[in-house]
């Protein structure tokens, strides 16, 4: 409403979009610039005062670099390719069935498992001495000792990609499910079916072309994440050589400070790798669109229906099974005592790992909770302020708000590095406040991504009606819009908590290792921690987001137990 009085609160709402954009974009840009300069040798604090290409030369002379880059690129393309295809095939085959309903319920808990915990679970499941091998040995293969093959940490990073695919499937599913109502898939499929197309085909041909543009951004975020992941790579990725992002982290942490320059050059290279992955993905998009158009114009109506459906359902089914199996493997390992190889279950059970971990958990747990809660509250307030300002202006936010997603598309290491340079320059000691701010940079875009649709889709007649009954814009916000949107807000908060809890790099780098969280401690155990201890930490790490999602699910049910009309409004 253009007539809102010039109260400070109204002003704050009007300025919210620009303010939030600044808070988010400024550190990314600043971080990138301050990565760029040292990469070319300029970092006066460390004596680098003139521009040089020497550090790039040093970087490219590092043995195995080409392979590291290749693995990062592969993971960056394999992950979205597999995850997206499986999600689309699954939805095409399951649309309108009970399976889809089941998956809607499963998505949130699957999403809640942090990357590191899921990666540990996968490792415990498929390692040569993992749960899977134990189940089939010696009955199927005659093995009485673990086979000597490199499954986890394999040379080409395939296990790492698998771990990423399993984690990104629920994310893309959630994004697709949230976007679908806008494009009325039922109508599209009904028309195609009336023209003789089988249902799965009909969905792929008529829904996917409209759906893809709506989930393009999350797909790009998957590419950026997969091509530059650090925590999953530390747990599942190759180590001779490491992936590029991990090498950058190691150079950064090298006691020889001159390696900072090489690290900066490496971070810039990582940015390039992610950009190349995104560009290649654009080509894949074009190719996919071209193939799709040919496929549609052939007019084939029936063939391959079953195999399309089965591929999607088996693929997504396996991903779910591995996620759940991974948590199960973590549970068993956390209580395992002596465990001879082909035995399916441990010979002895013990709570030793739990009691040891619980003795050390205090500070990391407190840090994790504090960081997650504060960054989530900040993110929710900021996102709601932006969306509320959009509502009151009565028109869509300017396209520049797309920059909000910048932190999801730039590899974390590429600008976190520069942010550290900035904090060191300002002599800000690394502390929990800085870590919270760094988390906010990643939590906020995901919160926006999950809440924006629900906020915009709310029937405008509710607020119009309230206004004609004499309610002021603030009254409408507190008494109508917020209660009606309580469930989506809580879901967004749960996702925000999950995003914060799973942050490894932002906590480790910005906190300079002095703000231990459940995630940094768990990942630190990746090399050389005892299985039991690793399992306990990974489980604890997964527990907080799980609780978040459980609350987001049950609180509205409890609150609205006598309000039938509130049940459809999620």
């Amino acid at each position, binding site marked *: 409403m253009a007539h809102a009085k010039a109260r400070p609160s109204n002003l704050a709402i009007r300025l919210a979009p620009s303010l939030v954009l600044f808070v988010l974009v400024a550190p990314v840009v600043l971080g990138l610039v301050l990565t760029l300069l040292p990469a070319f040798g300029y970092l006066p604090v460390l004596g680098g005062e003139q521009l040089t290409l020497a550090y790039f030369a040093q970087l490219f002379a590092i043995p195995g670099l080409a392979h590291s880059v290749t693995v990062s690129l592969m993971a960056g393309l394999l992950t979205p390719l597999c995850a997206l295809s499986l999600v689309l095939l699954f939805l095409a085959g399951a649309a309108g069935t009970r399976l889809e309903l089941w998956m809607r319920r499963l998505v949130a808990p699957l999403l809640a498992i942090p990357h590191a915990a899921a990666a540990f679970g996968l490792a415990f499941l498929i390692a040569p001495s993992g749960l899977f091998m134990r189940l089939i040995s010696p009955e199927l293969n005659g093995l009485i000792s673990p086979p000597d093959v490199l499954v986890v940490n394999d040379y080409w990073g395939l296990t790492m990609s698998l771990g990423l695919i399993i984690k990104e499937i629920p994310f893309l599913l959630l994004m697709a499910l949230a976007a679908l109502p806008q494009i009325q898939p039922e109508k599209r499929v009904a028309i195609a079916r009336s023209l003789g197309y089988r249902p799965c085909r009909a969905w792929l041909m008529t829904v996917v072309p409209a759906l893809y543009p709506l989930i393009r951004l999350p797909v790009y975020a998957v590419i950026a994440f997969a091509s530059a992941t650090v925590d999953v790579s530390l747990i599942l990725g190759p180590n001779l050589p490491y992936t590029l992002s991990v090498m950058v982290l190691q150079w950064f942490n090298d006691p020889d400070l001159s390696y900072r320059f090489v690290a900066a050059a490496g971070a810039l290279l990582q940015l390039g790798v992610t950009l190349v992955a995104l560009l290649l993905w654009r080509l894949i998009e074009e190719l996919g669109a071209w193939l799709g158009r040919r496929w549609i114009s052939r007019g084939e109506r029936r063939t391959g229906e079953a195999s399309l459906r089965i591929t999607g359902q088996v693929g997504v089914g396996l991903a779910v099974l591995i996620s759940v199996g991974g948590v199960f493997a973590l549970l068993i390992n956390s209580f395992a005592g002596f465990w001879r190889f082909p035995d399916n279950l441990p010979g002895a059970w013990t709570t030793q790992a739990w009691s040891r971990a619980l003795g050390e958990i205090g500070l990391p747990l407190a840090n994790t909770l504090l960081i997650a809660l504060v960054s989530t509250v900040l993110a929710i307030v900021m996102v709601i302020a932006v969306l509320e300002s959009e509502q009151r202006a009565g028109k869509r936010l300017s396209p520049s708000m797309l920059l909000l997603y910048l932190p999801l598309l730039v590899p974390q290491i590429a600008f976190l590095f520069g942010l550290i340079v900035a904090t060191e320059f300002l002599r800000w000691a690394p502390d929990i406040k800085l870590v919270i701010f760094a988390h906010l940079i990643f939590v906020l875009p995901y919160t926006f991504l999950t809440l924006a649709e629900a906020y915009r889709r709310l029937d405008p007649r509710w607020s119009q009606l309230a*206004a004609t009954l004499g309610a002021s814009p603030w009254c409408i916000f507190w008494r109508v819009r917020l209660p009606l949107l309580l469930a989506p807000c809580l879901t967004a908060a749960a996702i925000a908590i999950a995003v914060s809890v799973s942050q490894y790099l932002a906590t480790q780098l910005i906190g300079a290792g002095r703000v231990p969280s459940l995630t940094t401690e768990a990942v630190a155990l990746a090399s050389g921690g005892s299985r039991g201890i690793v399992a306990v930490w990974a489980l604890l790490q997964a527990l907080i987001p799980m609780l978040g999602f459980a609350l987001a699910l049950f609180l509205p049910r409890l609150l609205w137990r006598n309000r039938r009309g509130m049940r459809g409004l999620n």
Partner: protein
Amino acid sequence: MNEHHLQLDNIRISLEGRQLLVLDAEIRGGEVLTVMGPSGVGKSSLLAYLAGFLAPAFEATGLVRLDGVQLNDLPAEQRHVGLLFQDALLFPHLSVGGNLRFALPAATFDKAARVEQALASIGLEGFAMRDPETLSGGQRSRVALQRLLLSEPRAVLLDEPFSRLDTHLRREVREFVFAGLKVAGLPAIMVTHDAEDAEAAGGRVIQL
């Protein structure tokens, strides 16, 4: 009750340079002006303009005066113009009583008693704590009308208010809505497709 009086002076609404409608009218208390016409002629835009939330894409000129007060520059919540939609739109997160209470001006003395009294007047004594979802269609429409009246409007806009109701309910709801508006002495503008609505309203009809 003193009579209210709504005056529309040379209202013109256009979208992207294309003129949608021109309207001049004067509506006295208890009178219903019916506006009819095919979809897309701007009937809903007219109501949005009068209520105070016309989308920025539209351009509108002309004076709207209610009891002599010019409304054009007032925000929706200060216009005292009530609105009835196609659906009853009872807030699903509030109880029936909560819905009525929402409409009462903040300074109202003894809100609970006013709510009970309003419920009693439509034969729904003791329904205050009920979930609006548990009401029948007719009951919901009655509560929606009571909610509107409790907000002490000085004029009312009706946006195809009966089109979602089935035939036998439509007659009943029509009757008590028009009767309620007449008793309250409120000028009303109704937008509709239905000639029977126009006839039942008994006022002037403008074809767009």
